[in-house]
């Protein structure tokens, strides 16, 4: 029998104190990543700290003019169904809908998807394409980290052992975005390549080009963004291909991943820049 201690704190303060006293403890949100890894024997945490009872981590609200605050425990199903998200950031709903299956989406959280730091995480490219910031509870204080500075390697982030991701902030949702998840099948599949392109809806487009699953972390491609802002879509696609550092794995070869970046960035760019 796989054994671990289980804690279910009711507040952030309580959580950090548990974490401080139990260096081996791991946070548990929806459990759709962590339980799979435990069952596969990849990790054997001494303690799981279930954060689902912490009210501050729930809820989706409007911030600033047209921004969003998405509690870390927001489930993927909520991302799909919530009106505020659907109206202000439909690409995030679409990305969430592309993930897993209904049962998993009912449990899986956005915070878990981000904190898990898979290069193929589907909510991340849209979030990066909106310059999202991560709200982190650290040392009894709240800090903000731009999502682009959060990931350091596959499964690795800047998050310290006793820090908790509390929310994902999108300061300004006034962007049009398109996410393409390239998979072999329509459900229950992990992105072989993920592409998200966005632009501002008003004023200069200030585009974002984000690639998932083709580098150790999801990456922005500034060179491609520059080309897009000049209206040079083909050049942007080529720049995205150049920026990618994919690997061979059971899902696809590195060369195929490179091969499809071009058409996918092109398709996403046209979707966003089409009048």
């Amino acid at each position: 029998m796989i054994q671990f201690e289980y804690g279910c704190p009711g507040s952030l303060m309580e959580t950090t104190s548990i974490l401080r006293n139990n260096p081996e403890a791991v946070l548990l949100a929806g459990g759709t990543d962590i339980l799979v890894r435990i069952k596969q024997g990849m990790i054997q945490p001494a303690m799981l700290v279930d954060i689902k009872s912490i009210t501050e981590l729930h809820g989706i609200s409007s911030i600033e003019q047209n921004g969003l605050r998405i509690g870390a425990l927001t489930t993927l199903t909520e991302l799909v169904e919530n009106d505020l998200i659907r109206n202000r950031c439909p690409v995030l709903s679409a990305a969430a809908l592309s993930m897993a299956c209904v049962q998993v989406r009912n449990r899986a959280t956005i915070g878990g998807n981000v904190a898990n730091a898979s290069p193929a995480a589907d909510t991340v490219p849209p979030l990066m394409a909106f310059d999202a910031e991560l709200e982190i509870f650290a040392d009894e204080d709240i800090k903000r980290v731009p999502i682009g500075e959060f990931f350091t390697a596959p499964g690795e982030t800047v998050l310290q052992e006793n820090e908790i991701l509390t929310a994902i902030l999108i300061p300004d949702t006034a962007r049009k975005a398109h996410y393409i998840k390239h998979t072999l099948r329509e459900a229950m599949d992990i992105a072989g390549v993920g592409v998200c392109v966005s632009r501002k809806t008003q004023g200069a487009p200030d585009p974002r080009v984000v690639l998932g699953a083709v580098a150790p972390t999801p990456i922005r491609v500034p060179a491609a963004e520059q080309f897009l802002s000049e209206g040079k879509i083909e050049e942007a696609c080529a720049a995205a291909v150049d920026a990618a550092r994919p690997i061979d794995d059971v899902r696809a070869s590195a060369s195929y991943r490179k091969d499809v970046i071009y058409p996918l960035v092109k398709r996403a760019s046209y979707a966003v820049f089409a009048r």
Partner: protein
Amino acid sequence: MSDYRILNTRAPRVDAFDKVTGKAKYTDDLSMPEMLFGAILHSPQAHARIVKVDTTEAKKLPGVKAVITSEDTEGIAFGVSPARYDEQIFASERVRYVGDEIAAVAAVTPEIARQALDLIKVEFEELPSVLDAHLAMDDEAEQLHERYKNNIVQQVHWDFGDVEAAQKEADVIRTDELTSKMQDAAFLEPQSALATYDQGYLTMYSSTQAPHYIQRTLAMALSLPLHKVRVVKPAVGGGFGPKAACSSMELATCLLAMKTGKPVKITFDREQVFLHSRARHQFFHKMTTGVRKDGTICFLEHEALLDGGAYCSFGIATVYYAGSLLGGPYRLENMKYDGYRVVTNKPACGAQRGHGAVIARACFEIQLDRIAEELNMDPVELRLKNVREAGETTCNELYLSSFGMKEALEAVRDSAAWKNKRDDQPDGKGIGAACGFFVSGAGYPIYYSKTPHCTVVTKLNEVGGGVIVESGAADIGQGSDTMLAMITAEVLGIPLSDVRVMSGDSDLAVDLGAYSSRTTLMTGTAAKEAAESVKAQILEVIADKTGASIDDLDVIDGEVINSKGDLNIEELRHDFRMEHRGFRGIVKSGNLTFNEAARVAFIDKGSIVGTGKYSPPKLGGSFKGAAVGTSPAFGCSAQIAEVDVNLDTGEVTVEKITGAHDCGFAINRTQVEGQMQGSMMMGMGEALMEEIKYDECGRVINANLAEYKIPTSLDMPPLESIIIESHEPNGPFGAKEVGEGGIMPTIPAILNAIYDATGVRINELPVTPERIRTALRKAGKVNK
């Protein structure tokens, strides 16, 4: 509309309620007092000599009740074909694939059992492993089994007609190749077995497709009298072939139960399902076909190499089927076949839906399209020109007693608006057609025997009304229990709800099992015979008691009807009413009910039991291997697939499949469509996604359903299922197979459509986006 009241309808399945509400019990749902949990130690090595197995520590672990290895098995050999018993319950000297069984443990909890496995120390001496089927046949290659020279388990050399002469007549001759990958059947329910051993009687509950074969293998391998071995099949969540053979796991479960005297259960996890495999082989086909200018097929020269993994399993039959089933559905008088089935250090392959014939069919149907293109002929026209009709015999002596091939092909052609779409499609859109041909029940059992292939015992309920059908048939989700109930209800003239089916139990009757698409034709015939006997026995008594002639009596809608007028039933009814004082709902007037008649018959005769059996007539030619491919009837099918290929990414969207299948006669229309749709789904997965992947050490790297991809419901396009009924004279009410034949045309129809869409030919399955892009690049069709 048919004249039947129950047959040919869409009656709900008899197991629908239990399945939908979760009441149905699968093997792993079963539990018994004092039951132990078993676990199996699998080899981590693809090929190695076993130097030592040390179970000392494992035996000491508290909660462990037994640890068994090859030392406990007396060197027993078993397998599928008696001539190729090459498997052991536990490897004694060598392991031959990553997953080969080395030991088993029984303990009071599953966790302790697994923990004990970690305590078993095995010392290996690594051997060079053979992972490539072509290299396996080299003289220098490491030999996996002493008996298989050059690692060849079976070879077939057939030469029908006169290929050499036919070559001279051909105007166009083409050679094409197709390679596939090993597959997993991806059934939902992992294998599970629960054994009890009590006073010399062994009972095994198992998620099997073939209780009878399991019973025989258990009795043989464990040296038990056959009649003291009972195999019971609870609800089964799919089989598709791999559950048709007895496994080491089933034998280990029995051994542990015999050793401990306690019930023992073992259930595979998903990884073990992949390691045990016994699913589709890897095929390498090369075909040379010649045709005349007018499209007449002159000859086929066919070479096949089958990679079957570490053991023979069903491999002999597989390599024969790969050749023999190209005998139909076309007029092909000259056919040469050279087939080889080899062993390699990979999980063993066996039978899977469309046994042996699926990839061969795909290769041939793709080639026909290429030939049609060279002839500048419509590929459907080319096929129509060559299809056989009922009454014909193929060059390898398969007699087609009914055959709706032409009707099926015309039906899909018309329904899919083939002509319009074929001529008028933008780049990236494509449409393709293909045909298929399959047995409706293997003509011979897997072991030499003149046994009936099945028996059915139908017993009238003694208290009056209702019957119980006892059969050994294995309903593994395909719906054979419903088929048996419908046939019985139809024959007896009673409602479906008055028939109860007990099946899948070797104590009830003999049945070879759910494989080779045999159950409807064979067990259906036996059920019909059994029900007819019951009916005759009842009517005989009624005729006697009423003075009517038995020839004038019938049961219709649950009532005994005399076609020559009224029946004198006063006295019978009086007795029945007297017997049922206080009962409600006893009929006072009108016709004699079946319930009354049944009771009257019982009182007169005692228990009324009807039996039926099915034994095929002598089938097939006298050449070597002629038995494989023979069948009392043959099903055939045609499909048209429409695809949209994204030329930039290689992604394929199947937009529609139109299928027509000749099942002889649809006992249950919904179930026939269900089998057709399941086949199309499975074929689509094999065409586009499914592939077991190995690392360089022979380990399966995608042994789970996340990375071994099969289509989800969201991937499935609209499927149109057209039922063709050619009324098979050898089948019950004209019925024959639909279980496996429906998969035959799917792969080639999709591949032909992809060619139509892209202009590139891909000779390797599955046709992934990556392979399409590679082919496009090779053809210079990629800019950049």
